[in-house]
């Protein structure tokens, strides 16, 4: 199979003498760092830990659902399983996944800066994430939460005596981690671009992160105040969401979903950014319709604020407002579709090769399209009334989040692994892992569309026996999926010591990050770069490599 990978001669190659990894040694130099790259690595490690904890809960869910009765655990315990799975996966994995790891690492480099605008705030961001994570673990060890990750009132405020407050505090803290990351990105992208780096010369990865950051800054605070109100209601019984005292439980949902809908765009937009980079590199072609893709990211961010009540169609909102939100939901699908079309046109007549990041990107395109389309189905009120709170919804969001976002995350980790560590991952086993993940994913989640359509409710530990076959299929798929996720953990760790030396640009990619050494220097650039060429300019790159003398720091 052809490949575009070009590595330096392995007999003579070695890692650069000086890089951000060996600049300083010792735990303190990592825990008190201001270097955005080190903070990105800290995030990568913590996110991975929480991913596998969340995955454990997924395993528990699928195990219980192997059989129709609620026989593995009590129904209350099952509620705790899916709640913890949801909270950890959404707030501690998906929201920070690409922005806090790959975004933190690359945004300054991609704009040509030495660091993010506020390095100390960046470090604070990580510590807030860790505190949030510890509080979630505290809620877990104290006995867990069983409200569902959506904390619906008055269940969460009055009818349960589980650790809602601890979990609420955890998410409050983790939310500020997200806010500060977004704030940092916006300021950096606006104010710290290198000379010549105009907005329209930025990689699309930066545009996606900019859009996601705007959502983080404007949306997350509403979640914060909502959680504060829930906590106050639980602690002193203020009554804002309690019908008995005159409160409206639906107000909670309005405020909660005002954040949580943009949150799904916070989760997916950075993934879109990764896919733009990967597809361009492995088609050797500039992204088709750069301006459209850039503006569609911003459009998703703006429209994303107008559609939240499509999560509330059956909750008691008025039909008229539901109609408005339904129509707007149809609109918000358009920018996402524009991206899919543009990526497809990028592939057309490109020189495509199938390295691992590209495999994940292909997986993303297919699975995200299915997930996104089913989202449009759900946005239409008539369909939603039948399909909501069934496994159709579960399948829909797992297609976009796991089939979409998680695949994009893996694509990004593999694509920039050589840059972050200086070493290549082993291509053979990584391709196998990608394939296993794809097969496992489809086996796990496609049956859930059918289950939902047939009427199996979500968040139930027991189900009618006629649904068992599909559930068994789904659990089998989950096992395969699990293997697919454990493999990268193993071979990426292996590659840190035994991987091939990558050199600065193993993929022959455009972009500032590929013009510097791997791993980069702490200050990123030896001299401030001056940009006088467009993004994805492969001709410029071909010219440059002809004239280049590589200096390594």
């Amino acid at each position: 199979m052809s490949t575009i990978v070009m590595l330096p001669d392995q007999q003579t190659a070695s890692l650069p003498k000086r890089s951000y990894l060996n600049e300083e040694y010792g735990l303190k130099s990592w825990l008190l760092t201001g270097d955005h790259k080190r903070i990105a690595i800290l995030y990568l490690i913590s996110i991975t830990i929480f991913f596998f904890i969340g995955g454990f809960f997924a395993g528990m869910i699928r195990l219980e659902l192997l059989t129709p009765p609620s026989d593995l655990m009590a129904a209350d315990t099952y509620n705790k399983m899916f709640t913890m799975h949801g909270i950890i996966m959404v707030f501690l994995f998906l929201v920070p996944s690409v922005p806090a790891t790959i975004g933190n690492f690359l945004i300054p480099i991609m704009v040509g800066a030495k660091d993010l605008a506020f390095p100390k705030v960046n470090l604070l961001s990580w510590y807030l994430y860790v505190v949030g994570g510890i509080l979630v673990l505290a809620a877990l060890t104290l006995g867990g939460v069983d409200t569902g990750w959506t904390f619906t009132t008055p269940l969460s405020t009055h009818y349960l005596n589980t650790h809602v407050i601890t979990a609420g505090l955890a998410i409050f803290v983790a939310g500020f981690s997200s806010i500060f990351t977004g704030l940092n990105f916006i300021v950096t992208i606006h104010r710290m671009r290198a000379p010549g780096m105009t907005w329209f010369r930025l990689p699309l990865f930066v545009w996606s992160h900019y859009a996601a950051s705007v959502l983080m800054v404007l949306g997350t605070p509403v979640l914060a105040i909502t959680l504060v109100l829930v906590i106050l209601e639980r602690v002193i019984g203020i009554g804002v969401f309690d019908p008995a005292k005159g409160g409206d439980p639906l107000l909670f949902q309005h405020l909660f979903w005002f954040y949580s809908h943009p949150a799904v765009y916070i989760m997916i937009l950075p993934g879109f950014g990764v896919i733009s980079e990967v597809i361009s590199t492995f088609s050797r072609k500039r992204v088709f319709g750069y301006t459209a893709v850039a503006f569609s990211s911003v459009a998703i961010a703006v429209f994303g604020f107008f559609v939240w009540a499509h999560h509330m169609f059956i909750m008691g909102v008025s039909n008229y407002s539901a109609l408005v939100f339904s129509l707007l939901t149809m609109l918000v699908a358009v920018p996402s579709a524009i991206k899919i079309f543009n990526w497809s046109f990028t592939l057309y007549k490109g020189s495509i090769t199938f390295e691992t990041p590209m495999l994940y990107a292909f997986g993303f395109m297919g699975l995200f399209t299915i997930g996104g389309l089913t989202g449009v189905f759900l946005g239409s009120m008539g369909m939603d009334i039948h399909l909501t709170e069934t496994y159709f919804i579960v399948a829909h969001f797992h297609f976009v989040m796991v089939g979409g976002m998680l695949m994009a995350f893996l694509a990004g980790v593999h694509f920039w692994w050589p840059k972050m560590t200086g070493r290549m991952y082993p291509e053979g086993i990584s391709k196998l892992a990608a394939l296993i993940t794809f097969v496992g994913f489809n086996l796990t989640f496609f049956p859930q569309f059918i289950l939902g359509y047939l009427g199996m409710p979500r968040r139930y530990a027991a189900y009618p026996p006629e649904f068992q076959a599909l559930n068994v299929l789904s659990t089998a798929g989950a096992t395969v999926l699990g293997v697919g996720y454990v493999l990268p953990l193993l071979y990426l760790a292996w590659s840190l010591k035994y991987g091939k030396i990558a050199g600065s640009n193993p993929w022959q990619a455009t972009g500032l990050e590929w013009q510097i050494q791997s791993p980069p220097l702490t200050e990123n650039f030896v001299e401030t770069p001056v940009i006088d060429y467009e993004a994805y300019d492969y001709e410029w790159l071909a010219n440059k490599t002809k004239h280049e003398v590589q200096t390594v720091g």
Partner: protein
Amino acid sequence: MSELSQKEILDTEPTHHEEHIVGPKVYLVIGSSLLVLTAATTAISYLELGVFNAVVALGIACIKATLVILFFMHVKYSSKLTKLTVAAGIFTFFVLITMTMTDYISRAWGLW
């Protein structure tokens, strides 16, 4: 260090910071206006204006907020980016209010 004149400061800075420094006179005028408007709000609340009580009260509050934003917070003298940022925040706040209200306003329609 004794007080420097505005010109002296700008001459010794290698880079040019703000276009100009807002002087105490402006602050005094704005501050007094705000106090007058506060007194007005309280006084007007004693008048019987029906639904317009709320409108007037909020209107005066908006004027006060605008004065604080433009002059105390220097937005009048700030870059386009700052102005755009403020606008974006206000816009998002209004989206929250108005779109939530579409639900609450229309809940009782057609039900009687």
